[in-house]
């Protein structure tokens, strides 16, 4: 292995220079955020009502969106992984569409369906008086829409990797399909579900495009952190930096939570 080691130890400049440039490009903006942060007034700025409102709203909506994703996404992932039906590939592709779709397009699409005059929204408004656009519930829906694929993909992967024979063992012990699911399958894929939920939550927390399109930008009701950052950039750049720092901190925490899963590739 001596030769291989020597090869690995001396990278050619053609690769080294762009590699370092790429790294700098990724890291420098974050460093800039830290350098330009108004550290002296950080405490008082964080305690401003508008910041606290946005932070609270973000945490609440991202958490609710994650709960919705779990409630609907785990069964969906199970269907995709375990039920052989015609068109399973198509369904899987459809599930991943929000992943690649520009979020603002997702917002427009949600408006067309759930808007006051939308396909379903009109009926909901007439029959029950329920409207989603420009409400906190609308924020949750927008976040759920963009975040669900993360959960479904993560959980489906875990389900596919799980050893089906444990479920057979449970069946021979007298467990029905629901018992097998919640007492054997779910605990076996718990790490995958947890990772999916964390990813999902992080994605919901950072949601901007679909939220502002579908739910608008009303402080205290639909103005989440990313929206507050965008607005503050126009009026109070220092506040924008502070809000950004908070989101950066959350991102670092999420990464730390997932490190066992993702950072240990060797």
């Amino acid at each position, binding site marked *: 292995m001596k030769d291989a080691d020597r090869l690995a130890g001396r990278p050619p400049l053609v690769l080294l220079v762009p590699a370092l440039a790429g790294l700098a490009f990724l890291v420098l903006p974050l460093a800039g955020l830290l350098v330009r942060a108004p550290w002296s007034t950080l405490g008082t700025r964080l305690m401003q009502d508008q910041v606290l409102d946005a932070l609270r709203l973000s945490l609440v909506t991202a958490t609710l969106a994650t709960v919705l994703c779990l409630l609907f996404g785990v069964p969906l992932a199970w269907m995709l992984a375990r039920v052989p039906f015609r068109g399973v590939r198509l369904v899987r592709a459809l599930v991943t569409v929000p992943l690649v779709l520009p979020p603002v397009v997702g917002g427009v699409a949600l408006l067309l369906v759930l808007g006051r005059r939308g396909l379903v929204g009109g009926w909901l408004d007439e029959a029950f008086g329920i409207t989603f656009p420009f409400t906190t519930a609308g924020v949750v829906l927008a976040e759920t829409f963009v975040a669900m694929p993360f959960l479904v993909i993560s959980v489906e992967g875990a389900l596919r990797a799980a050893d089906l*024979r444990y479920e*057979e063992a449970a*069946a*021979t*012990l*007298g*467990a029905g399909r629901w018992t097998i699911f919640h007492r*054997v399958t779910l605990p*076996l894929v718990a790490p995958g579900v947890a990772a999916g939920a964390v990813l999902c939550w992080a994605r919901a927390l950072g949601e901007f495009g679909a939220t502002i399109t579908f739910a608008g930008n009303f402080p205290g009701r639909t103005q989440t952190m990313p929206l507050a950052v965008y607005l503050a950039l126009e009026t109070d750049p220092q506040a924008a930096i502070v809000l950004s720092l908070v989101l950066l901190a959350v991102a670092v925490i999420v990464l730390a939570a997932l490190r066992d899963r993702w950072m240990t590739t060797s």
Partner: protein
Amino acid sequence: MSEADRGARGLEARLVVRRGAFDLDLALTAAPGEVVALLGPNGAGKSTALRALAGLVAMAGGHIRVDGDDLRPLPPDRRRIGMVFQDYLLFPHLSALENVAFGPRCQGAGRRAARRRAAEWLERVGLAEFASARPRALSGGQAQRVALARALAVDPGLLLLDEPLAALDVHTRMDVRAALRRHLAGFGGAAVLVTHDPLDAMVLADRIVVIEGGRLVQEGTPAEVARRPRTGYVARLVGLNLYRGRAEAGTVTIEDGTGTVEDGAATLDTVDSLEGEVFLAFAPSAVALYRTRPDGSPRNLWRARVAAIERHGDRARVRLAGPPFDAVAEVTPAAVAELQLSEGSMIWAAVKATETHVYPA
């Protein structure tokens, strides 16, 4: 036990499973308290048969009656069958106690009643102190006992064991085999054991069913199977040379033989008086080897080519290739040296008529 009783109690099944080119068609019975071993080479359909009994593979035909009830229409969870899997499949997220309590819980027992029953079973397999241990903290032998306790805790009418000792190393295997034998003796229902190890089958089973290519090829007590193998696979397992042929006046003409150096026909003389289609078996140790044609010529003498020489314990196994037929001889390593045996060399081989064993085909 009469045939009528057998239909009413214990296992009475005909398993028909088709999967692509492979098909299994096996009639299987096991009386209450009887342990039946399914023995066969890889791909013979042993595990498929077991999975069909458990309801884990769909059957194309047949029936499965346990104590008179037909289980075939029932899903696995309604069959009241205990199954020990090859690598045990203990639920990794549950403790040993919770693993054993899983079955009783599924059968509707309350949490405390299920745990009490599980504790009793762990006690019975001698693992009471490991109740709170996770499966990954258990040794192979311990995991096997937890798996057995888990299967028995559902009070099954039929116990299925899929290669229960295959995952263990040689030393553990002996102890666990003895313990398993005790537990099986204490089990009142029918038990079906799948193995490819003849020793497991001989020690654990009351009756051996040999399957090859999805079909029953031989059935009998371990002693019968060991003494009178009916296929090459079983003969190799129990270490005998086996031939099929026609007996006439004490001489057996080997079916696949192709003529001896002696007289142009592959025949062996015996002391049995059977006539017609027979099996003829003799032990490798009954074969004597000579460098030159022996004087006083024993009657069963043939010239053979040495195909291979293998170590077998403290003896050497010499594979002899035909014509007239293939055979295995067992000699001491000293004899190998003395006879200057090497692969490809030609020697004389002889078997006394009294050392052959002939039985009807």
